[in-house]
């Protein structure tokens, strides 16, 4: 215990003495959060909207009126036939076509439910996801009993998705994409910085030769590792705190759920990241190598985390891979807890998977750390 305290003390001294490192730890995250959150927005405006109203009732007209009233949609035209609408989309004149079927109103009144079909130009997949979310939002606001059915626009085999539902939109009622992105970017920042710092820190000792000096002392492997990683665990939690404060102060992100829960989860999550950092540093000899490999993983993890591309719109094999992505779980949890107010039971599956990940990752890292070569 005392040995660990000596190591932790030394680490903190070195971290805070390193004038090149401090800005990386504290200034970069702030910039990152502010810039990325503003730039990486899903917001799609001026969507070229057309509709086919085969119902011609007050209900259908009212629905179309909702789209007219929305700032996101530009209602361009109404088409008489499906073919007409499709060719307009092929020509690129229309992004979204809503088809209101015959007997729409009747179904709604009689059976308390009705369907709409929706055709979206999905050349830009991300935009399409957002557009379908918007449409759903408007339709749901108008009447909870209506379901939209996503149709295949082109004749080519684009996977038909029968019912569109992107749950995350439901908890972001104002459709403010900052609300959606900021928690995600918070995840990115905590992950990247703790991974880079921890990975490079140990390799640095290898480079300057002090690691060898450590290995000749009687300190135990576990003491050394805990002493080395604990400061970065603290820094990770600190980053989360800075991020949350910024999210509240600058972006006014709603924080519906329990922050305690979020901190609890993060404390486990950071262990995964630190395990990775240590693992990487065990297999690299220079800081550049460690940096490069960390980047490689971070980029994959982030692209496959559901942060920028919805996991639902990934191919099946990619979706399976995302199961092994801790960042995905963190993104889910942050959004669930902050925006949706999910409780411990709701996030239990993610917590367990993260915990398992932490155990495996740290096990591997400790196992591969060798005092003797």
């Amino acid at each position, binding site marked *: 215990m*005392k*040995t660990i*305290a*000596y*190591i932790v*003390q*030394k680490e903190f*001294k*070195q971290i805070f*003495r*390193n004038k090149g490192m401090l800005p990386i730890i504290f200034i970069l995250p702030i910039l990152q959060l502010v810039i990325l959150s503003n730039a990486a927005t899903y917001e799609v405006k001026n969507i070229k909207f057309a509709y086919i109203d085969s119902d011609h009732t007050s209900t259908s007209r009212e629905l179309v009126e909702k789209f007219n009233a929305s700032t996101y949609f530009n209602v361009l035209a109404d088409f008489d036939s499906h073919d007409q609408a499709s060719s307009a989309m092929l020509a690129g004149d229309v992004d979204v076509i809503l088809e209101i079927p015959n007997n729409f109103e009747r179904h709604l009144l009689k059976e308390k439910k009705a369907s709409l079909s929706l055709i979206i130009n999905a050349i830009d997949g991300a935009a399409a996801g957002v557009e379908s979310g918007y449409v759903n939002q408007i339709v749901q606001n108008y009447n909870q009993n209506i379901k939209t059915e996503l149709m295949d626009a082109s004749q080519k085999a684009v996977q038909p998705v029968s019912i569109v539902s992107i749950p995350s939109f439901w908890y972001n009622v104002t459709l403010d994409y900052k609300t959606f992105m900021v928690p995600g970017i918070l995840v990115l920042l905590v992950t990247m910085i703790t991974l880079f710092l921890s990975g490079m820190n140990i390799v640095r000792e290898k480079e*300057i*030769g*002090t690691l*060898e*000096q*450590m*290995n*000749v*002392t*009687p*300190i*135990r492997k576990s003491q050394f590792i805990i002493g080395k990683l604990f400061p970065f665990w603290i820094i990770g939690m600190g980053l989360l705190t800075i991020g949350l404060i910024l999210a509240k102060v600058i972006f006014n992100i709603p924080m519906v759920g329990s922050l305690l829960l979020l901190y609890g989860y993060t404390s486990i999550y950071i262990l995964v990241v630190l395990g990775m950092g240590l693992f990487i540093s065990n297999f690299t000899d220079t800081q550049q190598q460690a940096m490069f490999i960390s980047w490689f993983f971070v980029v994959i993890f982030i692209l496959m985390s559901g942060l920028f591309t919805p996991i639902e719109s990934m191919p099946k094999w990619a979706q399976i891979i995302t199961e092994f992505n801790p960042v995905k779980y963190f993104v889910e949890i942050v959004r669930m807890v902050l925006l949706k107010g999910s409780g411990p039971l709701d996030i239990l599956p993610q917590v367990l998977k993260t915990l398992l990940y932490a155990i495996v990752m740290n096990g591997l890292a400790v196992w591969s750390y060798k*005092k*003797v*070569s």
Partner: protein
Amino acid sequence: MKTENVIEAKALTKKFGDFTAVNKISFEIKKGEIFGFLGANGAGKTTAMKMLIGISKPTSGQANVAGFDVYTQTENIKKNIGYMSQKFALYDDLTVRENITFFGGIYGLSRKRIKEKTQQLVSELGLEEIKHQLVGSLPLGWKQKLSFSVSLLHEPRIVFLDEPTGGVDPITRRQFWEMIYKAADRGTTIFVTTHYMDEAEYCDRVSIMVEGKIEALDTPKELKKQFKVDSMNDVFLRLARNIE
């Protein structure tokens, strides 16, 4: 008095792939002895030393250090030895005092003991004015002396010094050797590598390693007699030439 062997190596060997860096070296070193471990660049000195201090597993052969086996009891060895690597290995971004505190701490010295040791060290090395300076800003000679003192903090039975005086001026080298003698007088065994042949003369016994093998091992006096030369320098050259 000096009969107890603190280091024993028998046919100790280290291979990297099919390259043999250390080839069946054998020797015995007694308590309190200053043992000079000589050899040209790349002879295998550092590699041999790393096996003895328990951070590199031998390929074959046996060795005991402070009575512990280098294969199975490395952690016990580590409690009983000090090591000063060829590469300067204190923390440049910590002050003199912080380095002493840190290394004292991880060797399990009490706070009180660390304080005493720090005071003693600082006054012995004349570091009073600079004890709050970062080690990185010190001249090399001071760094080396500090590094040696730190390796002695926990009062190890044996201290391994890998080219401790490389690149240091003659006066500092002289002071350094005075420190070595002082430690040896207290009963610490010194295992030291060097490229300076005048330093070889200061050792109780020396071994000369050529391409992984120990080609000669005796007191400097005996070696000079054996090769019929006046200085260790000539002994060294003789040996190197014989091999060529």
